[in-house]
C-alpha cells in the first residue's frame, strides 16, 4: 500500500510517531515534511498531520486531487488541536474536515498509532467507550462547594470533578495516553461527542450550582438579574478556553477570538493559560523538544520560588533529558526501532508521550514499584506572580497564575 505522510504546521510529534508505520512490511511509506514543495503523484492513502492555515489550501487541494483516501491524524488536523488556541487571538487554524468532507479522522494528541494502522487497513474505528469506564476513580457528581486548581494527589478514589478539580473525562474516549492514570485530569483530546467543550462547560457550570451567585435588581422590572460584577465563581475558573476547549476550539461553534495577538502562533497558544497547566501544554506541543522545554519551564519556577527537588527527581529528569537526545537522533535518522525503544523508555518515566507524570516539585505517580515514592512526589505549589527566565524560555505570570508573556527561542 502506498502511503504518504504529510506534515503541515505544528510540533511534528504525530509525524514522528508515524515512523512506527515503517515497521509494517505491507506499507510503503514516504514522509513529506513540506507539502507545498511536493510534486503531485497518485497515491492510495494520504495521512495528513499538523495544523492547517489558510495559505495551505493549495497544498490540501493537491493532495485531495491525487489521493484515493485521506486520513487526518492527530488533533491538529482533526479538530484544530492545541495550536488552535491561537485562534483566540485571531489566527485561522482550520480543521481538515472543513476543507474536505470525505476524511477519516483519527484524533488524539498524540494521535494513536494503532488507530491509524487500522484505518489505513480499511477497518472502522471502534465505538465510544468512555474514559470514565477505565478510570480508577468513582464519581458521584454532587454539587461542589468550590473549584480547586490543584489537589493533593493522595486521594486516588474520588473523581477529580467531585474534588472540584476539572476533568473532561466525561466527554472523552477511552484512550492510550491515559493522563488520568498520572493524577492529571483529562483535557479532552479525544472527545466522543460533538461540541464537547460546550457540553462540558454546561456540566461543570451546573456542578457549581450551590455556590452563591451575585444578582442585582433590574431597575426597570425590579426583579433579580445576573449581576455584571465579577464574583468568586468567575475568579475560580480562570481559563475556560484553555481548560475546556484546548483541542477543539475551531469546531466548538464559538466565534473566532479577537484578543490582541503577539504575532507568533506558539506564543499565542501560551498566553492566557494557567501556570499549573503549562507542563502539560509544553509536554503536548513541544514535539521532540517537549522534555527539555517542560523541564526548563518547571525548573526555573522551582528555583525562583525555592521549591525543593529531591535527588531522585533530579536523577529521573536527567534520564529523561538523555532520552530526549536519543529521540532526536532516532527521528533525524528515521530509525523506527530506535524510536520505538526510546519512546517506551520515556513513557516509563514520564507516564506517556504527553509527559503527564512530570510536574513542579517532582512526579505525580510512582515510576518504579519498589521505590519510595515520597522521595520524588510532587505537592501543591503556590502560585507566585513574576517573570521567569531560563535560557531559551522566558515567561511571566500575573497574580492569578495566568501567563502574560512568553518567548521560546527554540526551533
Amino acid at each position, binding site marked *: 500500500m502506498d502511503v504518504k505522510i504529510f506534515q503541515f504546521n505544528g510540533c511534528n510529534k504525530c509525524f514522528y510517531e508515524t515512523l512506527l508505520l515503517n515497521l509494517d512490511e505491507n506499507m510503503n511509506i514516504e514522509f513529506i515534511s513540506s507539502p507545498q514543495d511536493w510534486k503531485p503523484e497518485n497515491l492510495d492513502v494520504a495521512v495528513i498531520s499538523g495544523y492547517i492555515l489558510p495559505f495551505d489550501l493549495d497544498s490540501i487541494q493537491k493532495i485531495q486531487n491525487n489521493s484515493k483516501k485521506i486520513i487526518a491524524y492527530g488533533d491538529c488536523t482533526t479538530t484544530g488541536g492545541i495550536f488552535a488556541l491561537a485562534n*483566540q487571538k485571531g489566527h485561522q487554524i482550520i480543521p481538515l474536515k472543513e476543507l474536505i468532507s470525505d476524511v477519516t479522522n483519527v484524533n488524539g494528541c498524540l494521535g494513536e498509532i494503532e488507530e491509524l494502522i487500522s484505518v489505513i487497513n480499511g477497518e472502522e474505528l471502534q465505538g465510544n467507550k468512555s474514559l470514565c469506564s477505565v478510570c480508577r476513580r468513582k464519581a458521584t457528581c454532587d454539587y461542589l462547594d468550590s473549584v480547586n486548581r490543584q489537589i493533593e494527589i493522595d486521594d486516588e478514589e474520588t473523581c477529580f470533578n467531585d474534588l472540584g478539580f476539572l476533568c473532561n473525562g466525561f466527554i472523552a474516549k477511552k484512550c492510550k495516553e491515559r493522563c488520568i492514570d498520572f493524577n492529571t485530569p483529562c483535557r479532552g483530546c479525544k472527545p466522543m461527542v460533538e461540541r464537547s467543550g460546550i457540553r462540558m462547560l454546561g456540566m461543570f*457550570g451546573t456542578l457549581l450550582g450551590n455556590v452563591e451567585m451575585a444578582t442585582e435588581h433590574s431597575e426597570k422590572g425590579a426583579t433579580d*438579574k445576573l449581576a455584571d460584577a465579577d464574583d468568586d465563581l468567575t475568579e475560580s475558573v480562570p481559563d475556560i478556553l484553555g481548560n475546556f476547549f484546548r483541542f477543539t476550539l475551531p469546531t466548538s461553534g464559538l466565534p473566532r*477570538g479577537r*484578543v490582541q495577538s503577539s504575532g507568533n502562533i506558539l506564543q499565542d497558544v501560551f498566553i492566557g493559560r494557567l501556570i499549573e497547566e503549562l507542563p502539560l501544554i509544553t509536554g503536548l506541543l513541544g514535539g521532540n523538544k517537549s522534555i527539555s522545554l517542560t523541564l526548563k519551564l518547571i525548573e526555573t519556577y522551582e528555583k525562583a520560588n525555592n521549591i525543593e527537588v529531591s535527588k531522585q527527581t533530579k536523577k529521573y529528569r536527567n534520564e529523561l533529558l538523555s532520552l530526549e537526545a536519543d529521540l532526536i537522533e532516532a527521528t533525524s535518522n528515521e530509525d523506527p526501532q530506535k524510536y520505538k525503544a526510546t519512546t517506551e523508555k520515556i513513557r516509563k518515566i514520564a507516564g506517556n508521550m504527553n509527559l503527564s507524570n512530570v510536574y513542579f516539585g517532582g512526579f505525580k505517580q510512582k515510576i518504579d514499584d519498589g521505590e519510595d515514592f515520597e522521595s520524588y512526589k510532587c505537592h501543591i505549589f503556590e502560585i507566585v506572580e513574576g517573570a521567569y527566565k531560563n535560557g531559551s524560555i522566558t515567561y511571566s505570570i500575573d497574580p492569578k497564575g495566568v501567563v502574560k508573556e512568553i518567548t521560546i527561542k527554540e526551533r
Partner: protein
Amino acid sequence: MSECETIDEEIKENIQNIVVFMCNECGQGSANTAGIARMAYEPAVRIVRVQCTGQVGPIQIMDALNNGADAVACVGCCIGACHFFNGNLLSMHRIKLMKKLFKELGYSDQFINQYTSRAAEGETAVGDFEDIVERLAKAIKEEGTIKDGC
C-alpha cells in the same frame, strides 16, 4: 448629542433577532401579561418557550448565536421561586461561565444574560427586554457585534 442618537438608532435598527428563552411559569407568564396589556417592546425579541430556564444549556445558547441571533437571554422565575427549585440558579451559573468565555475571546459579555420576571407583572418582562436591547446596543457600539467573529 444628536450624533449619539443616530448611531444608537442605527444600531437598534440593525438588531434583527434576539432569542429569549422564557420558562413555562413566570417567564412566558409575564410575556403573556405584557401582551394582554398591549405593552410595546422591541420586535426583534423572539420568545422560545421552555419548561424551565434550567433546561437551557450552553448548547441552546450557542445554537441561537450560531444561527444568527444578535443576543440571547434567559428569563425565569425569581430567585428562590423557581417552580422546580433551582433551575434558574443553574442557568445563571452556566451563563456566568459563558460570559467569561466570551470575555476571554475578546468579545463583550453582554450578548448573553439571565433575567427573572413575575408572571403577573408584564412590566417585568418588558423591562427585561428593554434591558437586553440596551445592553446589546451598548456592546455593539463599544465593542462590535458577535457577528464580527466571522
